[in-house]
């Protein structure tokens, strides 16, 4: 059914539809409304049979979830930015223990300097923590991805992080179509753990592993990540078939059939990019520009990306985080996926710390990127003040 909801509330209701049994709430802008929303649904009885815990820190939030998941019940929590870093020890622990926790990451910049606005630095910090990471383009996908995430997680026995841009999505009111409880119940079966803390057949979870076996454990984790691509795709397709909308899955293409330039990005900026590309294709009339929306960042769908971009001449990767002193992160991975193909890769770093991204700025850099590492909307004069000369190693 259609609703006009704040993104966070849409996610909260989607979470409720997935019948979590333990929800851990700790406030951190910008995801706070999500856990507030779920709290409301529990208090009002709309989400029954659910323990809602107000914990004392993000470390506690994920830890409670680890405990409850290990005890065999579907568990959920949410965090952002600094919170993700504070719980990082447990984030690795959860994937190591193969606990299929679902956590929302309201993407927000990492301090210092302190910044509460949107970018993807927090997600990038956890990219090798062994969690699956899915990015939502808009609030409809944010809601849908959570429903898919529980199924993906519990199928693969791997935790899933659903990333949605802080403020831009979490605080935006939009139309969202939320499925009925019965529909979700059909799509997402109850959680049946293969191992848990069960007094009937006791086992020890989280043994110390010596050099003798540690590599095998890590290799098997690697294999499961590779298997994840197929599962995410399958479940995405399953979801689209049932709910008649194309959300989730690994990635989506937009006018890439005969595009010379394809823009790759993750998250809410894709909306602005699509508008920009539409305008540019109309003005010079030959559909030169296409867009690739990347949903699954981990596992990174190399083959699917290569397939989608192989005919492009230039790939412009717009990303909201970057490796200091190095350049793009997503761009490097895309470049790896396109190894051997004669395709120019341009990295556009944009929207750091909530910096505004307008269609005109995008149009300008899509038409004529200056160099292969562009800092979109960088205030040149401010930089010149600091440095007598601008470092031009890739500097715009």
């Amino acid at each position, binding site marked *: 059914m259609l609703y006009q909801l704040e993104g966070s509330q849409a996610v909260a209701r989607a979470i409720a539809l997935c019948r979590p049994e333990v929800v851990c709430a700790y406030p951190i802008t910008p995801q706070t409304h999500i856990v507030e929303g779920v709290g409301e649904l529990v208090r009002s009885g709309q989400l029954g049979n659910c323990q809602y815990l107000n914990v004392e820190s993000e470390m506690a939030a994920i830890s409670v979830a680890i405990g409850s998941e290990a005890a065999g019940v579907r568990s959920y929590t949410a965090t952002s930015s600094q919170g993700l870093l504070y719980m990082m020890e447990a984030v690795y622990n959860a994937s*190591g*223990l*193969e606990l299929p926790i679902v956590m929302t990451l309201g993407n927000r910049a990492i301090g210092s300097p302190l910044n509460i606005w949107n970018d993807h630095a927090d997600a990038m910090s956890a990219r090798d923590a062994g969690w699956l990471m899915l990015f939502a383009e808009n609030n409809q996908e944010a809601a849908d991805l959570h429903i898919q995430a529980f199924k993906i997680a519990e199928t693969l*026995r791997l935790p899933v992080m659903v990333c949605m841009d802080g403020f831009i999505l979490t605080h935006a009111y939009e139309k969202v179509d939320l499925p009925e409880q019965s529909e979700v119940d059909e799509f997402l079966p109850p959680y049946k753990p*293969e*191992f848990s803390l069960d007094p009937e057949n*006791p*086992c*020890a*979870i*989280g*043994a110390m*592993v010596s050099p003798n*076996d*540690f590599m*095998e*454990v890590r290799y*098997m984790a690697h294999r499961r990540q590779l298997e994840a691509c197929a599962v995410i795709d399958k479940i995405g397709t399953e979801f689209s078939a049932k709910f008649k909308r194309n959300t989730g899955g690994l990635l989506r293409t937009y006018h890439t059939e005969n595009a010379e330039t394809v823009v790759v990005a993750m998250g809410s900026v894709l909306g602005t990019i699509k508008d920009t590309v539409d305008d540019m294709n109309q003005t010079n009339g030959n559909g030169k520009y296409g867009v690739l929306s990347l949903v699954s960042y981990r596992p990174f769908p190399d083959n699917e990306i290569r397939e989608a971009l192989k005919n492009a001449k230039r790939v412009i990767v717009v990303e909201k985080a970057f490796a200091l002193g190095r350049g793009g992160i997503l761009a490097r991975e895309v470049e790896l996926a396109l190894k051997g193909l004669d395709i120019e890769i341009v990295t556009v770093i944009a929207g750091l710390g909530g910096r505004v991204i307008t269609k005109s700025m995008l149009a300008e850099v899509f038409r004529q990127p200056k160099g292969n590492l562009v800092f979109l909307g960088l205030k040149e004069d401010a930089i010149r003040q600091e440095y007598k000369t601008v470092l031009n190693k890739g500097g715009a």
Partner: protein
Amino acid sequence: MSKPFATVVESRTSLANKTGSWRTVRPEYVHRLPPCNVTCPAGENIQQWLSLAQEGKFFEAWQEMVKNNPFPATMGRVCYHTCEKACNRGQYDGSVNINLIERSIGDMAIAKGWSFKKSEVRSDKKVLIIGSGPSGLTAAYFLRQFGYGVDIFESRKYLGGMMRYGVPKYRLPRRVLDAEIKRIQDCGVNTVCNRKVNNIKDELSNYDAIYLAVGASVASSVTIDIEPGSKVVSAVDLFQKIEDNPNDLPNLGKTVVVYGGGNTAIDAARTALRLGAKDVKIVYRRTINNMPAHETEIQDALSEGIEILCLRTISAINGNKVILDKMDYDEESGILSRSGENEMIVADSVVFAIGQAVESSLIQGIDGISISEKGLISVDNCMMTGVKGVFAGGDAILGKRTVTNAIGYGKKAAKCIDAFLQGREYIPNSKNEVANFKKLNTEYYQKDERKEVSRLGNLDFEEKNVSYSDSEVVQEAMRCFSCGNCFHCDNCYSYCPDNAIIKHEDGTLEIDYDYCKGCGICASECPCGAIKMTT
């Protein structure tokens, strides 16, 4: 998908990791000798019967007692309980009242008419025992258990030796003594009283072995000039008169002097009181702590008003005047010398209790049997005299003369004779390490005062009934530390950090050396020192 590899592990797989290899020392359950058993002259396994008493199994406790000593009730009266002195609990909150428990159970046996197990062993060999004192009767009891035919020849009117003629009735009632003697007779021991053996030569041919249990019943003579007509008697004769004709008790008059420092002197003095004497003094040449008498005996005498004059020797007795020489005693060197002074005290009669000698007339002229300079029959460590098949024991070979010692030697003699008759050599069993106080961990014993019962009666020949009740027996027995031997307190089993001690269904404990790391906590926390760390 099965369980995650390595990160999730089934229960108890650590049992594959045998940590026993960590050990440098290993705990072992041992049987250490409880101090009480060590000191018991009759070789009783006191701890064992105390343990049975704890369980209220009085009959089994009695059976355990009589495995080594057929006279528990008598022991309860006359034994000087060296076991209690040695009891480790003495260094904690008071030793276990072993003597009174033994007495109480001995009395139960008499009251309930418990009898000895009939032994099935039969042998056609016969043994003659000369003398029916504690050592003779005990030897007879054991030899019957070994299946031999036994004859006892007793020169006196009644059986019992020193138990009857050396211990007054108020300490050892005759109904008790007679009951315990009768029990031995009922085993098939043939006893003949008023049967004096002049010389064992006559009997050598009739028996396969002879046991000289003649004791030391001859009063030692003394070189004091005694004016004729002075009333002087030896303690041994006094006791025999009282015993043999109870209705015609001798009259020693109002003031009596007893000369001597041993238990016999004390008995003589207390008997004098009971014969009507009002003022009884004991004269003894050394100091009170040198007195050979047991301190409980000395206490009993003093509490009955008997006076002890120390550092005095009697130099002369003229009628009712007794001339005493005062003595000087040098503590370090132990040399006793006359001080030159003397004093005179008045006594209606004087009783001499200065020791007893062995009646050796019956072994005169037999080569191979020799008498030591102390007048004791000399025997080898198998208690055999120079003559094959002729053994000797009890007071006749002992310096330290107590009923309990005599019983101990009676048992040993029986074993030696048995070995001799079987043609093998008697080998005493080896002795384990002693469980001294240092080896215990007394933290686990609840403080619990020893239950005292006063033994003093009024000045008559009746014994005050002073046994424990059944529940008192159990309660006092419970105070036993069970030194050196496991009493199943489960401490070791409970304190082992590695679950490396197995407790079987029947409560027995076993160390699992696959896993025991040898830390030693079980040994430290064992209250009674029943675990030893060995390399």
